[in-house]
């Protein structure tokens, strides 16, 4: 099941020595550029020559300020605060003297990606070790300056204290000379604090990025200005691929004050197919010119494809036993089906969705001395840089991406496709440009979450026990189009699978017979670019898995929580692996039991009210975040309106680093889940999503927010991800609650009032019939 090793090897800082050395007036600490012993022998020299390649490093200056460099994108998760707390805790720093800096794309920062809910999980150990190594180096140097033995001293709050005497980090840095290397083995042996000794981890703090976000000073990509720039707006073609321009007529644009003309963009990377952009001296003029210019295309066949056609193809594929590749294959599902007393079948759908980050995508570009400087916000620089290099036909050394705050990411800014029109326009026009997509441009170009179909078949034996489940699902695969190097070989060796479109199906329920087929829906793939959207595969796969689990519980007359607990026994592959998934499915059982009492499951409910449950292990088996959710809903049977009264969640994410930040991530995630469940859905028409702005696309607003009760399990286990998992359980928990309240089983996301009315009408006419 460990299907993400390829990417993790790139990201993780394993097997690197750690350097501590005086450089200029500061003390620099960093992982060496080369793994193992082949590194430079002299820490000072290596650091001064910038021969280091960490995702993390930090420095302490003569004033004792600790400057921690953050190579992760700030997308609202306060990641800099969490990572800095990890370093500062082990270092023994004075928190009031800690500063963070978001860095550019210099190769020294190593592999750069912010996604997958990985940042804390991947950074915790190396950051703790780096902090501990820094502490030891400071302690030893401080002891020498105080004329004491190291073992008489300790590091507290930015000081080395030896009995009565003490010296500050700042004084140690200015008076001492450091030149030290910690080997991989030494680093691994450093004592890392246990829970009760921690000073910052798990303790409340204020996020460092928040004050600037209350007074307008936080700088986002869209806020950048460079000297001599002109404004640009793209003309987005009628579908993603295969449109070619036959004619451009800007007769109606030429009289717009400030209009400077247009450029037809030729993109060697083929990310853009059939693109024009307009230029103007102000952005408003660019907007008007974009509305006025007429671009004619030889249209792609994709412009005739609808969402329904894609879904019909998905239905067909999930019913074709030869389609797709094996992702899970335990026991013998055929045998279980033959021996079953009852066979259950259900098919679930999800509609296309948009990320809709509130800051429209944009980039400001200028060429300085042959180097392309890009100002923007991006989540996966290491994926985007090679793409830009290809589009510009230069090497990556000729490109620097300067990072700013991201006005929402949610996975949209993992792929830097929106940067390509900006760099090509700047190159063609020969001046710095600022390209901003209007909201409608942004929506039409955005890679939506693919529509999906999943088919389940369950076997139940004479003793009323589930003996096997077969699961097949079809969707467009983001990774296939954007990062195919991270696909992995299927169990039947028939081909490759997108891990981000199948995680969620390899769940922790013990089933003797379990088969899962992952199917790429080629019609979806060819029509649009499927996007990685917050919670990715689990976001839609768990909708099917957890709805179907409820259907089995109902069919076998079992309480939905008891039924799930009976399958969460932690046997075999579900026992878990230390340290990442220590105790395995038993931790999932634990959060499920906790949420049962937390939500008053089984308590008295009002008329037309119901409670539904769902669980998830987050984004992947190799980084499980254990969550259970109970939704309490009311259904208005006359108009089909669903009111979510309360969502109760119990979360086990191991060690919590920044408690309030963790809570904020889950709060936001849960409301995202609610919004996707009831308020969004953006059907593809003529090859493109159909709702481009808020007059038709209607994410959750304040009035729809239910009571939230989110509780974390206190734990010393390894820290895992939190950015996405909160999203996952909400939709199936609501569907299961609706079923309990009314008997209506909804199998399509988003859940619409009309679907409920339709179901009730059909039931009524069946009764009469």
């Amino acid at each position: 099941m460990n299907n993400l090793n390829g990417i993790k090897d790139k990201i993780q800082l394993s097997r690197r020595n750690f350097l501590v050395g005086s450089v200029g007036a500061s003390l620099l600490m960093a992982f060496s550029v080369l793994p193992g012993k082949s590194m430079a022998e002299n820490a000072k020299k290596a650091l001064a020559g910038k021969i280091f390649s960490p995702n993390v490093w930090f420095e302490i200056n003569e004033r004792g300020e600790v400057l921690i460099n953050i190579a992760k994108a700030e997308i609202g998760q306060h990641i800099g605060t969490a990572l800095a707390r990890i370093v500062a805790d082990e270092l023994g720093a004075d928190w009031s003297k800690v500063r963070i800096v978001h860095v550019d794309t210099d190769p020294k920062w190593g592999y750069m990606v912010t996604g997958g809910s990985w940042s804390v999980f991947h950074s915790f150990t190396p950051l703790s070790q780096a902090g501990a190594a820094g502490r030891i180096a400071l302690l030893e140097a401080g002891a020498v300056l105080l004329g004491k033995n190291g073992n008489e001293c300790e590091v507290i709050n930015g000081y080395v204290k030896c009995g009565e005497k003490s010296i500050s980090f700042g004084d140690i840095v200015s008076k001492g000379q450091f030149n030290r290397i910690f080997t991989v083995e030494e680093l691994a042996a450093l004592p890392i604090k246990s829970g009760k000794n921690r000073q910052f981890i798990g303790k409340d703090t204020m996020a460092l990025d928040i004050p600037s976000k209350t007074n307008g000073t936080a700088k986002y990509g869209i806020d950048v200005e460079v000297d001599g720039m002109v404004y640009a707006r793209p003309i987005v073609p009628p579908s993603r691929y295969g449109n070619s321009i036959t004619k451009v007529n800007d007769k109606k644009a030429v009289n717009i004050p400030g209009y400077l003309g247009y450029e037809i963009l030729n993109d060697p990377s083929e990310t853009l197919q059939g693109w024009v952009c307009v230029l103007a001296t102000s952005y408003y003029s660019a907007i008007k010119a974009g509305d006025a210019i007429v671009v004619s295309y030889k249209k792609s066949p994709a412009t005739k494809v609808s969402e329904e056609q894609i879904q019909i193809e998905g239905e067909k594929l999930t019913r074709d036993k030869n389609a797709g590749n094996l992702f899970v294959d335990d026991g013998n599902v055929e045998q279980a089906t033959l021996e079953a007393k009852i066979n259950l079948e259900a098919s679930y759908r999800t509609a296309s969705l948009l990320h809709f980050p509130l800051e429209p995508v944009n980039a400001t570009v200028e060429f300085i001395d042959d180097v392309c400087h890009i100002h923007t916000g991006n989540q996966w620089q290491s994926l985007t840089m090679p793409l830009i290099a290809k589009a510009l036909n230069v090497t990556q050394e000729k490109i620097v991406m300067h990072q700013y705050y991201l006005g929402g990411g949610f996975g949209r800014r993992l792929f830097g496709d929106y940067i390509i029109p900006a760099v090509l326009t700047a190159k063609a026009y020969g001046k710095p440009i600022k390209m901003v997509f209007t909201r409608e441009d942004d929506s039409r170009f955005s890679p939506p979450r693919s529509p999906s179909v999943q088919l389940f078949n369950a076997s139940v034996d004479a003793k009323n026990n589930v003996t096997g489940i077969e699961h097949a699902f079809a969707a467009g695969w983001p990774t296939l189009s954007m990062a195919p190097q991270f696909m992995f070989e299927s169990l039947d060796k028939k081909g490759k699978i997108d891990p981000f479109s199948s995680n969620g199906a390899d769940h922790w329920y013990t089933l003797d017979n379990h088969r899962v087929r992952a199917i790429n829906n080629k019609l979806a793939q060819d029509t649009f670019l499927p996007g990685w959207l917050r919670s990715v595969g689990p976001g839609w796969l768990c909708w099917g898995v957890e709805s179907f689990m409820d259907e089995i519980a109902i069919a076998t007359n079992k309480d939905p929580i008891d039924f799930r607990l009976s399958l969460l026994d932690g046997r075999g592959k579900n026992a878990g692996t230390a340290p990442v998934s220590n105790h395995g499915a038993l931790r999932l059982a634990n959060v499920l039991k906790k949420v049962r009492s937390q939500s008053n499951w089984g308590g008295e409910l009002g008329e037309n009210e119901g409670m539904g449950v769902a669980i998830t292990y987050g984004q992947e088996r190799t980084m499980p975040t254990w969550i259970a959710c109970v939704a309490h809903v009311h259904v208005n049977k006359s108009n089909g309106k669903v009111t979510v009264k309360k969502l109760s969640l119990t979360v086990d994410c191991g060690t919590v680093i920044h408690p309030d930040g963790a809570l904020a991530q889950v709060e936001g995630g849960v409301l995202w889940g609610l919004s996707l469940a009831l308020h969004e859905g953006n059907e593809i028409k003529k090859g493109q999503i159909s709702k481009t702005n808020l007059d038709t696309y209607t994410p959750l607003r304040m009035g729809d927010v239910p009571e939230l009760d989110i509780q974390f399990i206190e734990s010393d286990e390894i820290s895992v991800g939190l950015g996405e998992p909160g999203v996952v359980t909400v939709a199936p928990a609501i569907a299961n609650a609706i079923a309990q309240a009314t008997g209506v089983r909804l199998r399509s996301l988003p859940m619409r009032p009309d679907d409920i009315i339709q179901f009730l009408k059909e039931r009524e006419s069946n009764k009469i019939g």
Partner: protein
Amino acid sequence: MIEFILNGKKVSTKVPDDTPLLWVIRDEFHLKGTKFGCGISMCGACTVHIDGDPVRACKYPVKLVNKKQITTIEGLNNEHPLQEAWIKEQVPQCGYCQSGQIMQAATLLASNKDPSEKEIVAHMSNNLCRCMAYSRIKKAIKTAANSTSETVSIFDPALNGQKEI
């Protein structure tokens, strides 16, 4: 030429008079705290005050602000109780909508010193927060309201250039 008062300073612009106020504020006067979100007055990220009323700058032609007083997030000068409450309650996630949220909320507290839950929701429900920090926005508005027993007037240059908070 269109003249108006921007955060207490008299300014003028020569842009075409149908230009939305948003672009004048952001690109001519370089006040970047007011954001572009949807461009159709439906997300609230561009909310500013015109003579004390909340207005969506993305659709508001600059010709209509002649001789009027405009306040942007920068004009609150970090002194509005909402800004303190926003930090206390740790409201922002990505933060992109928050200037607009604060400006919208400020007009509520200017007329209602102790808004109820319902009044807050009614006043704020046209401001989208895509990170969905809604619970904290609500809480921070209550916190700010509780921090003072008076309504909170917003910068009004008509009052002898004095600021009343």
